[in-house]
C-alpha cells in the first residue's frame, strides 16, 4: 500500500510540475494574473508530493518491504538501519528520486526566500524550475520507477553493495546532489532574466547567494567523496580523474567562475552576458554529469547496471534543455547588454583572467572525459585518457590563474596600477620564494613540482593575509581599536579571505602528498617488521571478528618510532555473504603532518598476508582546504547585505544600500 501511495504521489508531483512549468509563463505572457499566480502553490504542492514519495520509499526500506523490487535489490534485513535508510540512493532509481527531491527542495526554498523579487520575475523563475522538474520526473516515472513491485516478494534483499556500506554513503550523495542540482536556481535566474530582457546589479545581487549556497554544497560533496575514496577504496588515492569525478568537478570549476563573475556583475554592472552564459553552462554541466553517471556508458565506481533507454532519454533531455537555453541566449543576450567598460589593468580584467583560466580548465577536463565516449559512439574504437593528461594539463592551466589570484583582490576596480600592486606584494613574494626553497629542503627532496606548488600555496596564503592587513590599516584611522576594526569588516570579505586561504592549504596538501608520499607492497609473516623511513610497522597477525552483516579478518599492526609506540592499526578484509563479496577496509592513523595507511591484500600461506603500506604526508590538508573554501562560502552568505536587501526592498530605507556599499568597498 505504502509504495503505491509513493508512486501515486510521484505522478501527482509530475502533474503539478507540468502546471508549474507552463501555466505561469502563459499567464505572464497573456497578462492573466489568475494563471500566473498558480506558480507558487503548484511548486509547493509538487514538493509536498515528492516528499511523500521519498518518505514512502524510505519507509519501505525501513520495514524491509522486499516486495518492492528496488528495495529487494539494494537492501537486506541484516543491513544496519543507518545504511537501510541511505540505501535509498544506493542504486539508480533511488538516486534519480534523490535528484528530483533536491530539485523540489530548491524550488521550495525559492518560493519562500524569493518573496522580495518582483512578481513577474519570481513567477518566471519558478516556472523555469518547474520545466526542469518535468523532465526529471518523467524520467523517474517512465524509465526508472523505484516503486516497481516484485511478485512474489523476495525472502530477503540482495544487499547494498558493500563498497557503499560506509558513513560516507549517508552524506556524500545528498550533499553532492544538493550542490549539483542547486545550480538549477542560477540557471533559472539566467533564463528568467533572458525572458525579461533585463539584467542589472539587482539581478546579480539576487542570484549571488543562491549560487554560493549551491557552490558550498558542491565543494563539500566533492570533498566528502574524495575522502571516502581515500579510505574506502584501499588504494590510498584521493582523486582518480575518473569520469564521474570529472562530472562533478566541471560544474564546480564553472560554478567557481560564476561566483566571481557574479561579483563583477553586482559590483560593476559588467560581464553581464558572460555571467548569463556561465549560469547556463554550470547547470548544463550538472546535467551532463547526470547523463554520464546514469547512462551506464562509463567504467567507474559509480556505474550501475543500467538500461540503455535511460541514456537516450537523458541525452534527449540534455539536448532540449541546453539547446533551448542556448537558443534563448543567442536570441535575447543582445538585449541584456555587455555592461560597463574597464581598463586593461583593473580588478575586472583580473577576474576575467580568473574566469578564462577556470573555464579553460573545465574545458580541458571536458575534452579528456568526453573524447573517449565520442570516439566510442562514432565506432572509432575504445580509448581511455590517462590520468597523466589531466595532471599535466590541469596544473599547467591553473598555475598562472593561482598566481593572478594573489594580485586580483588587491587591484582596484575599473583602473588599477601594476607598480602599486607590486609594491604591496613585495613581502608576499619574498615569503613565497623563501618557503618554496625552505620546505623542500626540510622535507629532504627537491623537485620542480614541489617548488612551484609550495610557492603558489604560500603566494595565495600570504597575499590573502596582506589583503586583510591592508584592509585593517585603511580603517585604522576611523577605528583605532583593533577588535572593533576587525569586527567592522564585512563578513563577505572574510568569506573571500577564508576561501582563498583554503585554496592555499589545499595546494600545499596536494603538493606535499604528491611530492613525498611513499608506498610499499609487501609480503608479511607474523612478527615481520617493515621499515619505512624512521617508522617500524610490525605485523602482529590477524583474528576473525563478526560484524552485523559480514565476517572479517582483522589484522593488527603496531607502528613504532625509535622504540616508542606511535599507532596501532587494524586493517580488515571483510566478507559479505549475501553478495559473496570481499571488501578491503584500510586503517588509517591520520595526522596533521602525515597519515599512516595500511591495507590488507590477500592471505598467503602460514598466516602471512600481502600488505600495502603508505605514508601520506599532509594529505589531510587537502580536505581541510576544501572545508575552508566551503566555510568561506558560508561566511559570505551570512553577510549583512543579503539580509539588508530584503529590508531595503520592503521598507525602501537607505540603510540597506549603505550597508551593501560598505560590504563591497575594498
Amino acid at each position, binding site marked *: 500500500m505504502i509504495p503505491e501511495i509513493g508512486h501515486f504521489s510521484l505522478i501527482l508531483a509530475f502533474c503539478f510540475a507540468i502546471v508549474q512549468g507552463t501555466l505561469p509563463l502563459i499567464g505572464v505572457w497573456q497578462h492573466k494574473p489568475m494563471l500566473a499566480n498558480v506558480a507558487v502553490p503548484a511548486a509547493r504542492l509538487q514538493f509536498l508530493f515528492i516528499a511523500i514519495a521519498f518518505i514512502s520509499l524510505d519507509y519501505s526500506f525501513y520495514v524491509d518491504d522486499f516486495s518492492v523490487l528496488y528495495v529487494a535489490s539494494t537492501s537486506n534485513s541484516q543491513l544496519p538501519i543507518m545504511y537501510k535508510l541511505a540505501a535509498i540512493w544506493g542504486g539508480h532509481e533511488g538516486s534519480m528520486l534523490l535528484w528530483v527531491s533536491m530539485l523540489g527542495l530548491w524550488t521550495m526554498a525559492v518560493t519562500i526566500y524569493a518573496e522580495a523579487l518582483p512578481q513577474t520575475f519570481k513567477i518566471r523563475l519558478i516556472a523555469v524550475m518547474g520545466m526542469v522538474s518535468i523532465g526529471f520526473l518523467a524520467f523517474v516515472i517512465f524509465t526508472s520507477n523505484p516503486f516497481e513491485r516484485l511478485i512474489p516478494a523476495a525472502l530477503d534483499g*540482495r544487499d547494498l*553493495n*558493500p*563498497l557503499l556500506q560506509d558513513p560516507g554513503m549517508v552524506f556524500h550523495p545528498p550533499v553532492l546532489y544538493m550542490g549539483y542540482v542547486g545550480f538549477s536556481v542560477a540557471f533559472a535566474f539566467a533564463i528568467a532574466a533572458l525572458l525579461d530582457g533585463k539584467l542589472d546589479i539587482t539581478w546579480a545581487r539576487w542570484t549571488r547567494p543562491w549560487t554560493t549556497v549551491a557552490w558550498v554544497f558542491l565543494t563539500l560533496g566533492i570533498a566528502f567523496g574524495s575522502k571516502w575514496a581515500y579510505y574506502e577504496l*584501499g588504494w590510498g588515492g584521493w582523486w582518480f580523474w575518473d569520469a564521474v569525478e570529472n562530472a562533478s568537478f566541471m560544474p564546480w570549476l564553472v560554478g567557481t567562475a560564476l561566483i566571481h563573475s557574479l561579483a563583477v556583475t553586482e559590483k560593476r554592472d559588467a560581464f553581464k552576458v558572460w555571467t548569463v552564459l556561465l549560469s547556463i553552462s554550470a547547470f548544463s554541466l550538472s546535467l551532463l554529469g547526470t547523463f554520464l553517471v546514469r547512462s*551506464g*556508458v*562509463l*567504467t*567507474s*565506481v559509480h*556505474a*550501475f*547496471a543500467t538500461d540503455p533507454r535511460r541514456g537516450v532519454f537523458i541525452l534527449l533531455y540534455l539536448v532540449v534543455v541546453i539547446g533551448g537555453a542556448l537558443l534563448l541566449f543567442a536570441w535575447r543576450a543582445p538585449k541584456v547588454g555587455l555592461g560597463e567598460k574597464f*581598463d*586593461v589593468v583593473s580588478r575586472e580584467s583580473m577576474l576575467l583572467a580568473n574566469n578564462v583560466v577556470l573555464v*579553460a580548465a573545465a574545458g*580541458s577536463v571536458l*575534452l*579528456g572525459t568526453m*573524447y573517449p565516449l565520442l570516439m*566510442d559512439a562514432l565506432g572509432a*574504437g*575504445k*580509448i*581511455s*585518457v*590517462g590520468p*597523466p*593528461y589531466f595532471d*599535466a*594539463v590541469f596544473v*599547467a*592551466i591553473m598555475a598562472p590563474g593561482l598566481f593572478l589570484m594573489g594580485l586580483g583582490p588587491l587591484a582596484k576596480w575599473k583602473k588599477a596600477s601594476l607598480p602599486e600592486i607590486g609594491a604591496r606584494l613585495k613581502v608576499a613574494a619574498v615569503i613565497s620564494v623563501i618557503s618554496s626553497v625552505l620546505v623542500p629542503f626540510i622535507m629532504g627532496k627537491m623537485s620542480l613540482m614541489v617548488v612551484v606548488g609550495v610557492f603558489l600555496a604560500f603566494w595565495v596564503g600570504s597575499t590573502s593575509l596582506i589583503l586583510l592587513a591592508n584592509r585593517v590599516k585603511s580603517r585604522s584611522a576611523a577605528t583605532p581599536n583593533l577588535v572593533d576594526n576587525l569586527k567592522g569588516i564585512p563578513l563577505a570579505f572574510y568569506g573571500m579571505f577564508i576561501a582563498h586561504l583554503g585554496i592555499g592549504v589545499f595546494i600545499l596538501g596536494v603538493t606535499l602528498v604528491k611530492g613525498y608520499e611513499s608506498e610499499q*607492497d*609487501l*609480503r608479511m609473516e607474523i612478527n615481520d617488521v617493515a621499515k619505512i623511513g624512521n617508522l617500524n610497522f610490525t605485523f602482529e597477525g590477524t583474528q576473525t571478528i563478526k560484524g552485523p552483516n559480514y565476517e572479517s579478518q582483522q589484522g593488527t599492526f603496531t607502528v613504532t618510532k625509535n622504540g616508542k609506540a606511535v599507532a596501532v592499526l587494524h586493517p580488515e578484509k571483510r566478507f559479505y555473504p549475501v*553478495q559473496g*563479496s*570481499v*571488501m*578491503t577496509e584500510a586503517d588509517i592513523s591520520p595526522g596533521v603532518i602525515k597519515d599512516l595507511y595500511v*591495507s590488507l*591484500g*590477500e592471505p*598467503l600461506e602460514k598466516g*602471512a598476508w*600481502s600488505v*600495502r603500506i603508505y605514508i601520506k604526508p599532509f594529505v589531510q590538508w587537502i580536505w581541510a582546504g576544501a572545508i575552508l573554501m566551503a566555510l568561506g562560502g558560508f561566511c559570505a552568505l551570512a553577510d549583512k547585505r543579503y539580509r539588508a536587501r530584503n529590508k531595503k526592498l520592503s521598507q525602501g530605507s537607505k540603510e540597506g544600500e549603505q550597508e551593501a556599499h560598505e560590504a563591497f568597498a575594498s
Partner: protein
Amino acid sequence: MKARHKRFSLIAAGLILLVIATVLITQSFKSNLVFFFTPTQVEKGQAPKTGSFRIGGLVENGSLKRLPDGLRVQFRVTDTAKTMQVIYKGILPDLFKEGKGVVAEGKLGAAGIFEADQVLAKHDENYMPPEAAAALKAASDAKMKAGTM
C-alpha cells in the same frame, strides 16, 4: 594612443599564450591516449608492441595463480575466442573474480605476456565493464560470422 597600444600588446600576448596552451594540451592529450584491444586483436598483432594499452574480457576459470614471491599474480583473460596471459604485481581489486569481467591496463612484455599495472574489475553483480562486454561481443560476432559462412 598609448592605451590602445598597451591593449593591443596585451591581446597579442594573450593570443600567443592561447596558442601555446592549445599546442601543449593537444600534445599531452595525444601522448596519454590509451587504446583498447580484445585478446583476439592482440593475438593478431594489432596492439602496440611498446606503450600502454587496455585489454578486457573474462577472467578464465581456474587460471588465477599466485607466483612464488607472494606478491605477483598471474591469470588469463579471455574473450571466449582467444586468451592471453596477464601478470600483475600488487593487490587485486576486491571485486576481481574468476569467470567475471575484467579490464587491465599495461604493456606487452616478453613472451607475449601482458604486464598489467592496473586492474579494474566489475563493481556490482550485474555490472560488466563496457570494454569487457565489447570484447565478448566482438568474439561472439566473429564466431557467428564464421558459422554462417
